[in-house]
């Protein structure tokens, strides 16, 4: 029996990983999170604090980092958790992001240069290098756009914007590729990684094999949630949205937590970016992520059932 500690285990991706591990007899999965009520299944832990981490991982055979948060939290949690894994000789899995490739375009495999320039992307890059420097027996999963039940940014937010007529068919502004992946598939991938033997530092992109364009994702999601006839959104409206989003971006840089649903310039750049995650390496893990249609169906069903 392998005892796995999932940091960020109460979050959206973390809880999907816990579910995937719990479904298999060979794992005992324990969540670690900053807040909540401690129990045999949940350990309270500040993943940016070495002592707190050392205590949380005291009996873990494997550590999975699915922590979310500010740039500082992303980088430091990866450093502390992987250092702890190295010290204990525990396996380590880091949930990374497509954001590390920055503005790359075309088909991008795991050997592509990391060109990230955004705060988030740079933080994820630093997290990756911290993991590499820790010396832990680490595997890296670089996830695309994570959807499925519970995805606030990529399902609930998009769905609400579609219903409000603020998103729709963006024309050339939505021709980028939306590398959808279900959180559940990331859970599956983690389970496969831990069940098998991966070379130290192995890295895998993970996304649907038939990732649609963002326009395609918006159209399919709008249809599935009955958002009404798809609206065509022109450049003038998008420019206005980006301008309206500016003050909120400044606020969030200043540390404010509440982020209203704004179509910021950086989000709009993502919608335009024709980057396709090459996931062929993933086949060696023996998992095949769900199709885009399945991603949309599962996401829409969850959203439709929200109060």
């Amino acid at each position, binding site marked *: 029996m392998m005892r796995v500690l999932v940091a960020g285990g109460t979050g959206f991706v973390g809880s999907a990983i816990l579910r995937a591990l719990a479904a298999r007899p060979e794992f005992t999965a324990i969540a670690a999170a900053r807040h909540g009520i401690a129990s045999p299944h949940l350990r309270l832990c500040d993943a940016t604090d070495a002592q707190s981490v050392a205590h949380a991982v005291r009996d873990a055979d494997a550590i999975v980092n699915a922590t979310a948060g500010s740039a500082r939290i992303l980088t430091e949690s990866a450093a502390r958790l992987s250092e702890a894994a190295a010290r204990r000789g525990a396996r380590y899995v880091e949930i990374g992001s497509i954001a590390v490739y920055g503005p790359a375009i075309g088909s991008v495999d795991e050997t592509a240069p990391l060109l990230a320039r955004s705060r988030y992307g740079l933080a994820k890059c630093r997290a990756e290098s911290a993991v590499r420097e820790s010396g832990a027996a680490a595997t890296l999963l670089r996830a695309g756009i994570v959807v499925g039940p519970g995805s606030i940014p990529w399902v609930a937010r998009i769905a609400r914007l579609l219903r409000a007529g603020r998103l729709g068919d963006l*024309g050339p502004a939505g*021709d980028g590729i939306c590398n959808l992946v279900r959180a559940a598939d990331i859970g599956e991938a983690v389970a496969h990684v831990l069940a098998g033997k991966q070379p130290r530092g192995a890295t895998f992109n993970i996304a649907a094999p038939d990732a649609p364009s963002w326009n395609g994702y918006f159209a399919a999601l709008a249809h599935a949630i009955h958002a009404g006839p*798809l609206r065509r959104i022109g450049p003038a409206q998008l420019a206005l949205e980006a301008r309206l989003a500016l003050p909120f971006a400044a606020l969030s840089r200043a540390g404010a937590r509440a982020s209203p649903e704004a179509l910021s310039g950086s989000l709009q750049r993502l919608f*335009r970016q024709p980057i396709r995650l090459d996931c062929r390496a993933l086949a060696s893990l023996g998992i095949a992520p769900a199709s885009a249609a399945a991603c949309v169906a599962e996401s829409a069903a969850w959203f439709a059932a929200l109060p």
Partner: protein
Amino acid sequence: MIEDARCVPSGLAIETGLCIVGGGPAGIALALRYAHPARPTLLLESGGIDTDPATDLLNEGEVEDPALHPPAALYRRRALGGATGIWGGRCAPLDPIDFAPRAWMPHSGWPITHETLRPYYEPANALCEAGAFAYTSAAAFPAGLSPPLEGFTSSRFTDDALERFSCPTDFGARYRDALARRPGLSILLHATAIGIETDERREAVAALNVAAPSGLTFTVRAEIVVLATGGLETPRLLLASGGIGTARDLIGRYYMCHIAGVTGRLHPAPGRAVAHGYGIAADGTYCRRRLALRPEAQASLGIGNFIARLHHPRPADPAHRTGALSALQFARPFLRPEYTLRLGASERPSWPHIRNVLLDLPGTAGFAATWLRRRRFAVRKFPSVAVPPRAGIYALDFHAEQAPDPQSRITLAATRDRHGVPRLRIAWRYSALDLRTVREAVAALAADLRNSGAGHLDYTPDEVAADALREGAYGGHHLGTARMSASPRTGVVDENCRVHGTRNLYVAGGAVFPTSGQANPTLTIVALALRLADHLRAA
């Protein structure tokens, strides 16, 4: 990569794998789909990103009878995107019967069937941004869409046929970014092909002569050349190059547009609802039901394909008493010439029109507000004026097939453009069959309206013929001038759009249509271009 021929050095010789001449919807669809990893592609476009009058001058030519055909440069555009920079966006596929040889229509029949093209219609619809490939109201509107005229039933007409509308999408503006970053594809703007050089046996293109606006010329050598220059420039370039392949005498013949017009006065029966406006499908596209002549009725009447829509009466005639329609008379100066032509005869705004506007101020203001919001400032535009006429009387807006006729043809004029290429001479002809198609179809529709008790169509056969020819050839649809045929004796290109008797010259566009069908051509032009891309990639 997008480059400009205004910056190329003289004496340049470009070598490439595939050369596409013309960056309209046909050339752009082909370039987007082709993307061959090992064969670099060059697209030559005569115009730039935007139109400029000097380039459009290259489209000028002679028209045999100016009453029958618009000036050669009208309804055309030289710029990336081709005529989609000004098109109306109406989309409909050809019907299966359009591909069949029909005993009652000489020279009819394609060497391919609807089935051959069917897989390409879906992606073509997507490229045209006309939503799903669903062309019946039953398929596109699960919750139903009101019929044009309540209670109309007929064994000869279906009212379930749909037309769908593109934004209307300018292929140049829409796909410029996608083209620019496509690996292996270069676009050269302001590059006008002015001649095709062949090998000694005239079986293959050896090189293309290309001119920049300055007059500087250079050559392009390519393994494969596709002419996607539109239905008028394609025969011009082939003829100006002295012919190539085996079909010399057929190039430029069988020139078809469509036979269209607005005619009659349709009085719906009391209490019958009329829906002559647009529905919005789930994918956001505007759609409209129309009355389509069924294939069996075409066969039994011995006529071509035909559709009709309920329409407001001709705006130029103030008897409609509708403020919005009269107001259009005052908007003429702000409209493109292509559209003022279609508005009808250019009568000056007269007192009855002013009276209509004044007596229908709320209607006129409401129309103006909707027009601004849903058309002027919208990206997906409300397709056309669709106001209920206050007098309650509608007209029939019909669009009919023009039959192929070798006497209707494009030849070269004695004069030349500034690059020395002979200008076009357009001798468009219509035939007795064309007039019979509209006369018989309107008569059948009138009879079926009466029989179903849905309404009454008031018309005379002479008036139908006059309305069909009022503006002459329908502008913008240039078809048949390099027709597709199984045998080199009856056409210019084979079923794969390769010029008969050549190894490496192909045509994309309406020129290859052997017959015109009732449908507006662009959707099919794009579908054919996508099919050609697959064929060339496999070759």
